[in-house]
């Protein structure tokens, strides 16, 4: 379930209802997979027993949260918690870039990418500031992790 769609539903319905529904969804999914893993018996439990048990519990709790949440949550206003698309987007893309450049590029491009891209998520950061920050972090990274701690991460790399 993506965060964006969750937020859109939130503006219409109340939080506890969504939260409960989410729990039921997770619970049922886990029960479904757990049953597939062989439940076994009480004395000889299969690998699916414990997860299925948790799934049933979570589904029940989810139902209670969704049903009892109504009255109390009506008063809850979603004050100041609107989704910040730029921030979320940049942080997410920044980490993905670290992974991608880490595999196809190496430590130096990966470090630069994660700092620069995520820094752009803040509206007060200009390109120059983000650039300076990422260069600073790059230097720090080289001194602390590459030179000091001998991190097992090639400076430049292409694949494995």
């Amino acid at each position, binding site marked *: 379930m993506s965060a964006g769609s969750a937020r859109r539903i939130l503006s219409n319905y109340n939080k506890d209802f969504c939260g409960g529904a989410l*729990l039921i969804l997770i619970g049922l999914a886990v029960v479904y997979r757990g049953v597939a893993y062989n439940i076994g018996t009480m004395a000889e439990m299969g690998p699916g027993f414990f997860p299925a048990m948790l799934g049933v519990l979570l589904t029940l709790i989810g139902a209670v949260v969704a049903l009892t949440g109504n009255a109390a949550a009506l008063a809850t206003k979603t004050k100041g*918690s609107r989704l910040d698309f730029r921030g979320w987007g940049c942080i997410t893309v920044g980490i993905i870039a670290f992974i991608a450049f880490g595999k196809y590029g190496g430590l130096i491009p990966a470090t630069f990418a994660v700092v*620069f891209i995520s820094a752009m998520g803040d509206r007060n950061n200009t390109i120059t500031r983000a650039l300076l920050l990422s260069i600073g*972090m790059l230097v720090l990274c080289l001194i602390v992790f590459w030179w000091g701690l001998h991190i097992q991460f090639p400076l430049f790399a292409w694949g494995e």
Partner: protein
Amino acid sequence: MIYQSLIDLWHGFGVALAPHNLLWSFVGVLIGNLIGVLPGMGALSAISMLLPLTYTMQPVPAILMLAGIFYGSQYGGAIGAILLNLPCHPPHAVTCLDGYPMTKQGRGGAALGITMIASFFAASVGIIVMIFASPLLVDVAFKFGPAEIFSIMLLGLVCGGTLSRGSALKGVAMTIVGLMLGSVGTDVNSGLARFTFGIPELQDKVELVALALGLFGVTEFLRSVNRLDAVGSGVKVRLRDMRPNNAELKSAFFPMIRGTAIGTLFGAMPGTGPTITTFLAYALERRISKTPDRFGKGAIEGVASPEAASHSKTQVDFIPTMTLGIPGDPVMALILGALLIQGIQPGPQLITEHADIFWGLVASFWIGNILLVILNVPLIGLWVKLLQIPYRYLYPAALFFICVGVYSTNNSLFEVGEVLAFGLAGAVFVSLEFPVAPILLGFVLGRIVEENFRRALLLSHGSLTIFVERPISACFLAISALLIVGILFWTVRRSRFITSRRKFSGPSA
């Protein structure tokens, strides 16, 4: 027996104070502290990164240095937790709950001071217990069967799930989500890969560091980006601020003692990590407090008690790790691994066969903790400098530390992806007003709970009565049941007059 322990300890001090060993201990504490303060780097990443360095060293200095890194980074982690709301070592998730609000109120210095006092006091008590009780506790720990371990874990989970701010039901739900995450990976009994969706990296469990940093680090950045100016703006922690005032000392004194007691008690039990202990200590303080509403908003009791519990637990935790070979948490498991690499087999014979290591380690704890206090008093100004950085510079830098820190734990980029996934999931949960801290507790205990549950029922041929037939187990179950009933009663009574004035609670719970 005690007389013999004292003589051995005297020799231990001789070992730990030998200039060569003392130097490595100091280096360990310093590096550990430095790394621990860096946002996103905790004891786990610090030890795992520096572990290869010790391969070439002698066993005694190697273990002393690792232990130094451990408590150095643990204290450094407390600084990050209190000042930045970043728990890099899972037990600090609890410290964040009240430590960070204290920083927001400009009392971060006092929180750090209390942490230092509490940890030194608790560690000292833990060490004393370790000296006198080591031989005795080996016997008690042997009496714990799977049913007992399951019941005590259940008690821990109930406490952990219900302690968080907001609805107890939601806390329990998140604990269950954590337990589910714990079952991801290869099933020990059948060898079947569960919930891995064909991804080979997931067969070896979800990475704890990735989960912790995702849920607390990335989630917090997602919630705070463009909303916070500077985390530490206006916070000035100088030497003189680190001394808590008399009122604070007074209100922190008994929580500190209770925390130490809980930590010591749980340290002797194999398999209960420091996380469960800190959660319990916090839950206890909150429940017995006359003003439970202050918790989560900067109550000094909420910092002193879990920190004391964590440190005394850590000290006592070395007993099952060293004497039984059962590590209480991932950090202990790493230290166990280091011992094995050095060719030392932990077990009941360790105290007699490798007396220099065991008692040298005990002595070095004390020396290390003194070094820690000496180091942190002048260096605190430097740590605080980290806080003056505006948030728009801080979070990209911290994000980088998280990425590199998680990567370095297992040299795996996949785990960096896990951080992102857990960060996003955590942000969704937090925006639905679910507390995320119990997920971590459930996750850490998940495997042990399941294994012992299955083992106990295997022994009883499927009869659930085994949990009430065994007295120790029945006792823990009764406490859990009492707790649940009590909380239900309390919540129903409280919700009657609180529904009318329920307010939006802060981003992190």
